[in-house]
């Protein structure tokens, strides 16, 4: 009897299946956790523990996002709404940004049919949150509502898709600037279809730069890489240090990056 050897494709499929199954057991956006909990995960690695320790001088907590390839966009969506939903003026500004993003999408050739439902969910979710706060919903209840809405598959996925579309549209509209940085594809349309718009495709720096520029929302990403040479976690500002230096009025969002994954960070 000959044992049947699985093909590469079958192995890859199985691999994907295992990852998907594992990911589905995690919440899309998890609860607030003390940063010290992260240290427990790295019992064997002094380098990581040193970096986490250095991170604790600036940050106190994290919120884990599901590792399904959408974690950057999911983390961004949550952190963005959480940073602004209690402030009426910031909500209005964000709603205006979202309305303008539709113009960017149209200019980049997106059909309304393809994006309008997702945009509507983004807008309605922020409006609902803001209204509840204006009507006097308590701090704790407001936080719970935010978590409920943004951990629901429908809202969270719609926001992920729409942020992917904005990123894609921005890259398509500024392709002369970004084309030289593409390693995976030779033209922007192919790159965007394969690596930006498709659900589950992981994000690189180019995605982060494009999204933060398109929305005018600044971001700091703390890199935890277990490097032996850097005891402190490196913190990268996006879209760029220069743009931060100009004092642009960024909502400042904070994410944690570990190779292949993003989570949300909270300052001390």
């Amino acid at each position: 009897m000959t044992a049947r050897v699985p093909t590469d494709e079958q192995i890859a499929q199985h691999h994907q299946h295992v990852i998907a199954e594992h990911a589905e057991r995690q919440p899309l956006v998890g609860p607030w956790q003390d940063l010290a909990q992260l240290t427990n995960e790295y019992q064997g690695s002094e380098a990581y523990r040193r970096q986490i320790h250095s991170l604790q001088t600036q940050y106190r907590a994290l919120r884990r996002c599901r590792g399904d390839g959408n974690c950057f966009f999911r983390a961004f969506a949550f952190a963005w709404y959480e940073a602004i939903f209690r402030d009426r003026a910031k909500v209005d500004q964000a709603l205006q940004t979202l309305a303008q993003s539709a113009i960017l999408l149209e200019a980049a050739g997106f059909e309304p049919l393809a994006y309008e439902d997702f945009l509507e969910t983004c807008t309605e979710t922020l409006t609902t949150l803001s209204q509840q706060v204006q009507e006097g919903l308590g701090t704790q209840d407001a936080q719970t509502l935010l978590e409920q809405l943004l951990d629901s598959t429908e809202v969270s996925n719609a926001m992920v898709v729409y942020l992917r579309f904005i990123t894609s549209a921005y890259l398509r509209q500024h392709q002369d600037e970004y084309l030289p940085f593409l390693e995976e594809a030779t033209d922007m349309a192919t790159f965007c279809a394969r690596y930006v718009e498709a659900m589950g495709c992981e994000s690189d720096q180019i995605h982060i730069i494009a999204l933060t520029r398109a929305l005018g929302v600044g971001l700091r990403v703390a890199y935890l890489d277990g490097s032996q040479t850097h005891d402190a976690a490196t913190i990268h500002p996006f879209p760029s240090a220069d743009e931060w230096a100009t004092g642009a009025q960024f909502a400042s969002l904070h994410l944690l990056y570990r190779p292949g994954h993003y989570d949300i960070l909270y300052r001390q």
Partner: protein
Amino acid sequence: MYRKSNSAALKRLMTEYKELTINAPEGITAGPISEDNFFEWEALIAGPDGTPYEGGIFSATITFPKDYPLNPPEMRFTCPIFHPNGEDPNMYESSSERWSPVQSVEKILLSVISMIAEPNDESGANIDACKLWREDRDAFNRIVRENVCKTLDL
């Protein structure tokens, strides 16, 4: 009742159906098999003019996942079709191309039509059809014509 997790897909499918009813591109008819279930569609595709498939009507079913358009639908021809890319229209999309939620039923059907007209011989699924298409176009066209007549019950 549809569960909440379906409602975004349902809304999108209803919009697409409405659009396709009002504004169907030439050569395409598509819609739910029953209005009780918007996740199972039937499509009729007219063989493109100027090709041996001209005059033929090709039927297919389209099954949508509950999170459409985040994930792609599956399409199956429900009639025989002699074509280098085989009977599985999902293969008609160039295999390197990933699904993106920017797509729609209309875009899928249009790309199936263009693939019927211009086979992609790099991803041939029906080896016989591929070989014949490359080496003996007259014989290929003859089989396709016979096939078209069969699907029309002539």
